[in-house]
């Protein structure tokens, strides 16, 4: 952060088009985050950078919109009984340490290998993490479809049952989302990993939510809602760190927040209309598409580092724009699935209300 003064004075001029663009991207990002607990933010940093915002300012402004958004989402979903505050705070604190550690790794890589090295590290992290975690969720989703168990309650995995069976004196805490006492020695590394990922690819939830589901045994709805608490705790600390260096462009952060607060409320409402299984469907879909998007950029960075032979300018441009377009597509597909589920749920409830009203009228008419 040596070039802070330069970065801070490089806040871009805002036009109406820019403002509307950020508001809309914020809305879609918020919708996805409200539903799966995270996942909207990965597109915001590149979206801001595509407008000419310097990298660090984009990361800082993204972070500064994320924590108030997560706060509102967490409050909303708490009202639906989906949040485990204790688990969220404990994982959030270890996540904060992970964010700091992840950021220091980033700085070291940037210092040693420059921007191309840093970008390559981020893209490889995307591909490896989303490849592993995304495959696990996708496999789970496909198995549920195959066994026609999409309507059934989620089963606790064998790993989670083992974690819940371990008793380490002095470290056991009861978590309502698990309905069990587990050792915080399991939650600390998971929170830490979530933080490292948040500092690397901006979406810690891609590790946080699956780890709560598959390692700790939390239901999908509670895991995704609790992730909002983790994002809030990590986001406050992260934003403060960037703000201390004057890197937050408050106009960008509040513009995205403006759209994302509409989105997050809607996404949270959506969770009350769907089967818990849908959280996994949306998460797996987004993860697999984003993996493909980031994978496309790996040859570009390898060429910049001289590992492979240089690519032509037109090829680099084509790969960059295709990657960005696929990333936007991932978010749009996620938003589409969520909106479809909400509309379907609202129609079903409306029809049920009508049936009840008719039944009530018939009963009172018969008296």
């Amino acid at each position, binding site marked *: 952060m040596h070039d*802070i003064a330069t970065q*801070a*004075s490089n*806040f871009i001029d*805002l036009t109406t088009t820019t403002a509307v663009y950020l508001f809309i991207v914020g809305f879609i990002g918020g919708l996805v985050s409200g539903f799966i607990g995270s996942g909207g933010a990965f597109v915001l940093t590149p979206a801001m950078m595509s407008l000419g915002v310097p990298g660090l300012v984009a990361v800082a402004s993204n972070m*500064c*919109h994320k*924590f*108030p*958004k997560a*706060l*509102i989402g967490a*409050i*909303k979903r708490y*009202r*639906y*009984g*989906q949040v485990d505050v204790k688990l969220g705070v404990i994982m959030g604190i270890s996540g904060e340490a992970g964010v700091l550690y992840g950021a220091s790794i980033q700085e070291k890589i940037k210092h040693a290998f420059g921007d191309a090295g840093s970008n390559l590290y981020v893209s490889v992290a995307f591909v490896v993490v989303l490849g592993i975690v995304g495959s696990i969720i996708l496999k789970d989703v496909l198995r549920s479809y195959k066994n026609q168990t999409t309507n059934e309650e989620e089963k606790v995995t064998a790993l989670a049952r083992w974690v819940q069976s371990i008793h380490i004196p002095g470290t056991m805490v009861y978590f309502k989302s698990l309905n069990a006492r587990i050792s915080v020695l399991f939650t600390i590394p998971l929170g830490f990993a979530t933080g490292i990922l948040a500092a690397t690819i901006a979406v810690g939830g891609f590790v946080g939510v699956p780890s709560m589901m598959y390692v700790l045994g939390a239901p999908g*709805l509670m895991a995704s809602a609790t992730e909002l608490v983790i994002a809030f705790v990590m986001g*406050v600390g992260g*934003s*403060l760190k960037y*703000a*201390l*260096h*004057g*890197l*937050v*462009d*408050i*106009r960008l*952060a*509040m513009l995205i*927040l*403006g759209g994302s*607060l*509409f989105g997050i*409320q*809607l996404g*949270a*409402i959506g*969770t*009350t*209309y769907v089967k818990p299984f849908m959280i996994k469907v949306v998460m797996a879909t987004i993860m697999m598409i984003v993996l493909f998007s980031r994978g496309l950029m790996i040859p570009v960075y390898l060429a910049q580092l001289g590992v492979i032979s240089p690519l032509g300018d037109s090829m680099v441009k084509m790969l960059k724009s295709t990657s960005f377009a696929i990333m936007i597509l991932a978010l749009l597909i996620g938003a589409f699935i969520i909106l479809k589920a*909400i509309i379907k*749920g*609202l129609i079903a*409830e409306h029809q049920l209300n009508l049936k009840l*009203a008719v039944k009530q009228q018939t009963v009172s008419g018969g008296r």
Partner: protein
Amino acid sequence: MAGNIDKFRKKHYGKAIVLGIVSLVLYTILFTEQHVLNEVFAKGGYFALLPIATAFLFSFVHGNFTGNFWDIIGISAKKEKR
């Protein structure tokens, strides 16, 4: 039942209008005074608390507004809580 719905909507209309106006005022100030705010917020150090406080303020006002907004247009959570 219809009376209850009307009462519910009226309550949310009132809140949404007040919060919507406050939110609009906040965004107007943010953009009309953007040069001053950018300069002050970019100072870092103790001034770092300003963007954090601003984010909390906007999330409180605008977040409550958006919640009421979806309620008054009839999009609210399923009644049966999970």
